[in-house]
């Protein structure tokens, strides 16, 4: 099939297949899946500027499907998601500005890139330690969730002391998040987490769920299932903003996104439904390779000389 806007010629079944795989990952982990969709589009001849914009627009459609499913399962904290949008958009703009600044400065991209790699690998290492420690503790206490109980109610973490420390921060104003079971957290802590996610998204492209999801769990103390659903809700808004921005610059081939999304829609439903059958630590353990993939993307960008985008 010929896609006249980007000038690419791709078999629709390939796009539907890529969409399906990314959809399952997105529904299950609450990530955009750019680390997979981006290279898959680039590999079949889609120009790099269209890869970034088209992937963002496909993420919008996929996240709508997965977020609606998560909402039906009670996994979305809308209040938290709405607050985070402000921080995310500021972060996305900062990330984009950082790229513009790096273009004028020699070697700084290496310094920032290496910092990102260390941060991402640290997240994976930390999550690996935390999930193993949590699993051991749960095995020794042998706590089983009650029938019909939302999975978030029985979600425990060996690193919950970090979130408790963040909750105690004296930085008014404070917000109550009843859906996530949080009585008091500083608004600035929420905005900070959203800003970091947005910064990575603006700098590296895509939804940056590989950093936002762990931040929601470990810094804000959001239960894993609600972190996945809320991240998806927040991605809808930030990716919509990115789609408009890239479409105005001529970087979106919407027909490619629409075809990909037909596969992603069913994949996202499956991924979101699958979260019901896994406990929080299991989801977190399966998530561990994603920041590693993010680090590989940064390494590739540095070595190929393309910077972050």
């Amino acid at each position: 099939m010929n896609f006249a806007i980007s000038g690419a010629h791709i078999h629709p079944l390939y796009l539907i297949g890529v969409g399906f795989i990314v959809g399952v990952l997105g529904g299950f982990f609450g990530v955009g899946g750019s680390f997979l969709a981006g290279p898959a589009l680039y590999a079949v001849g889609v120009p790099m500027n269209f890869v970034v914009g088209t992937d963002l627009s496909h993420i919008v459609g996929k996240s709508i499907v997965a977020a609606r499913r998560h909402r039906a399962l009670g996994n979305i904290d809308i209040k938290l998601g709405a607050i985070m949008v402000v921080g995310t958009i500021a972060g996305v703009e900062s990330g984009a500005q950082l790229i513009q600044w790096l273009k004028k400065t020699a070697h700084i991209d290496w310094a920032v890139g290496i910092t990102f790699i260390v941060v991402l690998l640290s997240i994976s290492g930390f999550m690996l330690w935390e999930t193993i420690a949590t699993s051991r503790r749960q095995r020794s206490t042998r706590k089983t969730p009650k029938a019909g109980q939302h999975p978030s109610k029985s979600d425990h973490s060996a690193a919950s002391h970090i979130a408790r420390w963040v909750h105690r921060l004296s930085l008014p104003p404070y917000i109550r998040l009843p859906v996530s079971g949080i009585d008091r957290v500083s608004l600035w802590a929420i905005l900070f987490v959203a800003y970091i996610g947005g910064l990575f998204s603006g700098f590296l492209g895509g939804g940056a769920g590989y950093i936002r999801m762990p931040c929601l769990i470990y810094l804000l103390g959001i239960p894993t299932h609600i972190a996945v659903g809320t991240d998806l809700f927040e991605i809808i808004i930030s990716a919509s903003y990115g789609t408009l921005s890239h479409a105005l610059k001529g970087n979106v081939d919407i027909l490619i996104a629409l075809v990909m999304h037909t596969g992603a829609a069913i994949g996202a439903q499956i991924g979101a439904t699958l979260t019901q059958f896994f406990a929080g630590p299991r989801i977190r353990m399966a998530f561990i390779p994603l920041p590693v993939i993010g680090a590989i993307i940064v390494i590739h960008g540095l070595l190929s000389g393309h910077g972050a985008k």
Partner: protein
Amino acid sequence: MKREARGSLKAFLIELAVYAALVTAYFFLVLAFLGEWLEKIYRSGRHLYAVLALALIVSQGIALEAVTTALLAFIRSRRGDE
């Protein structure tokens, strides 16, 4: 348990087959004809194209979510009747 898992797999495969048929029809009836029209708008007015691109992906997201949810509900109700 095994019987339950087999039932879920069967329901999933039926859903996938029906969904594939619907998507194929949608692809030939709608998407195949959108290309030229979208390209014209892309060349003539970038602002209209940007709004249209977002509207199309959001609409498709909502529509396909409704289709997949309805399919799942229909198959589950049929399994409940058996």
